[in-house]
């Protein structure tokens, strides 16, 4: 009796697990075509993806599955062939990616800008700075807490290049410079908790719900422009890449409809992205 029941229970457990696992696959099979795209945290945190994806689904019947990572990791995913395309914002890294043959081409889609955030009291006095580099110099001179993404993302790369333009090396900074190694939202949370300065893209900042005592202090320098580009992964290296779907998506992202949606997207009445794809 006991042996028989044991065998029966064993079979039941196996059947249960098999049915559970197969239950996971069934909806995947029934679903529309899908492709994977690695995008930056700033693109997703801005909320723009929540508006674009349903439209893409409606027009193309295409499920775009987003992997939300930093630019560095997004390019790694493309290099390994784990995604079909990437949408990132770090020109130098993108060009290196193309030069190594990992992507087929680079198509500029839109841009937004970076802003400098800090405590309302602005102890370093960056609000009156003339350039972004000058603002950073003031922060370094005052040695007030500054949170850096420190995650090799596009925003992080931009910040490091600005320190370089200011003639300073961020690796030699004291304890006021805090590299947290996290995404935009998590870094903003940290800055909010420490009442520190931070560089963010405008979209993530406007959407961010835990502003605390922080305030937008500096923006507008042209070096703070943040160009987003779409790069399909090279099918010669990774035959499983869905090139046709990627091409359809690229056509849609550069279409007049996408232009209107992107240009009309606003948070609190502020325009966030400017469409600039060449057709």
């Amino acid at each position, binding site marked *: 009796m*006991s*042996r028989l*029941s*044991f065998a029966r*229970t*064993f079979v039941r*457990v*196996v059947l*249960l*697990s098999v049915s*559970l*696992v197969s*239950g*996971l*696959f069934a909806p*995947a099979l029934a679903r529309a075509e*899908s492709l*994977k795209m690695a995008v930056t*945290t700033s693109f997703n*945190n801005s909320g723009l993806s929540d508006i674009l*994806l349903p439209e893409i689904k409606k027009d193309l019947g295409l*499920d775009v*599955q*987003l*992997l*939300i990572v930093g630019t560095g990791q997004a390019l790694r995913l493309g*290099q*390994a*062939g*784990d995604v079909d395309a990437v949408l990132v914002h770090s020109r130098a890294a993108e060009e290196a990616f193309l030069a190594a043959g990992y992507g087929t081409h680079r198509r500029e889609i839109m841009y937004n800008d970076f802003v400098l955030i800090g405590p309302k009291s602005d102890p370093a006095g960056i609000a009156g700075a003339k350039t972004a580099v000058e603002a950073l110099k003031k922060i370094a001179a005052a040695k007030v807490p500054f949170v850096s993404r420190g995650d090799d993302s596009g925003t992080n790369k931009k910040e490091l290049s600005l320190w370089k333009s200011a003639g300073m090396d961020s690796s030699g900074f004291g304890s006021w410079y805090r590299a947290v190694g996290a*995404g*935009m*939202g*998590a870094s*903003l*949370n940290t800055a*909010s908790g420490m009442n520190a300065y931070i560089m963010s893209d405008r979209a993530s900042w406007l*959407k*961010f*719900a*835990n*502003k605390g005592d922080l305030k937008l202090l500096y923006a507008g320098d042209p070096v703070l422009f943040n160009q987003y580009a779409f790069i399909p992964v090279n099918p010669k290296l*990774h035959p*499983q890449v869905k090139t046709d779907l990627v091409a359809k998506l690229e056509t849609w992202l550069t279409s007049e409809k996408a232009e209107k949606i992107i240009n009309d997207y606003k948070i609190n009445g502020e325009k966030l992205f400017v469409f600039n794809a060449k057709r």
Partner: protein
Amino acid sequence: MSDIFNGLAAAFWLIVTLDANLVEISLRSLQVTLSALAIACVFAFPLGTWLAVQRFRLRRTAIATLNALMGLPPVVVGLVVYILLSRSGPFGVLGLLFTPTAMIIAQVIIITPLVASITHQAMRDLWAEYHDLLISLKTTKMQRIRTLIWDGRRTLLTAALAGFGRAIGEVGAIMIVGGNIDHATRVLTTAIALETGKGDFALALGLGFVLIALALAVSIVSHWLSQTEREGRW
């Protein structure tokens, strides 16, 4: 403090209105975790029991190793599974990365040692009790293991629930191998991480309360199904 009340309110509204997204990610959480648990138990119950019954030279080392593996860091498991399943890794052709299957694989690796270790602890005591009887009946090793598993099934429930608890609340590994893709691999824990990143603490906390409620419900249902703590039964 007000964040916690906002979180409770958010959880309440999410549940009362049966938010479609919430239902979807909760079901996915359950599917992934229960699948991983079922697979882990198939390996872990016989392994833990076998370790209690069998005497061999490296037994102590094997048990110590198993106990140490209970503390396997999920992030490292996630990273290793990620590298193995990546298109440029050895199992890349299967195309499993960023699917629920990849999440199940990672969770099986994380919870199998835990379930096996607790099984072993329970079975060691039971074996001390059954030893003379089963030896005198001239049972084979397989028969002994089966008998112990069947008669110790209620303690095994505890082992399984411990595994469930570890898996359902896990975020490090499934974030890496699942990628937190909306409508594909997003589960409760990764959704909480995402909402925290957006600074929406109320929603994050609300999801957290739903997660706790879910774990509680599974535990209660499993005890009820196996009819423990009832009069006349142990």
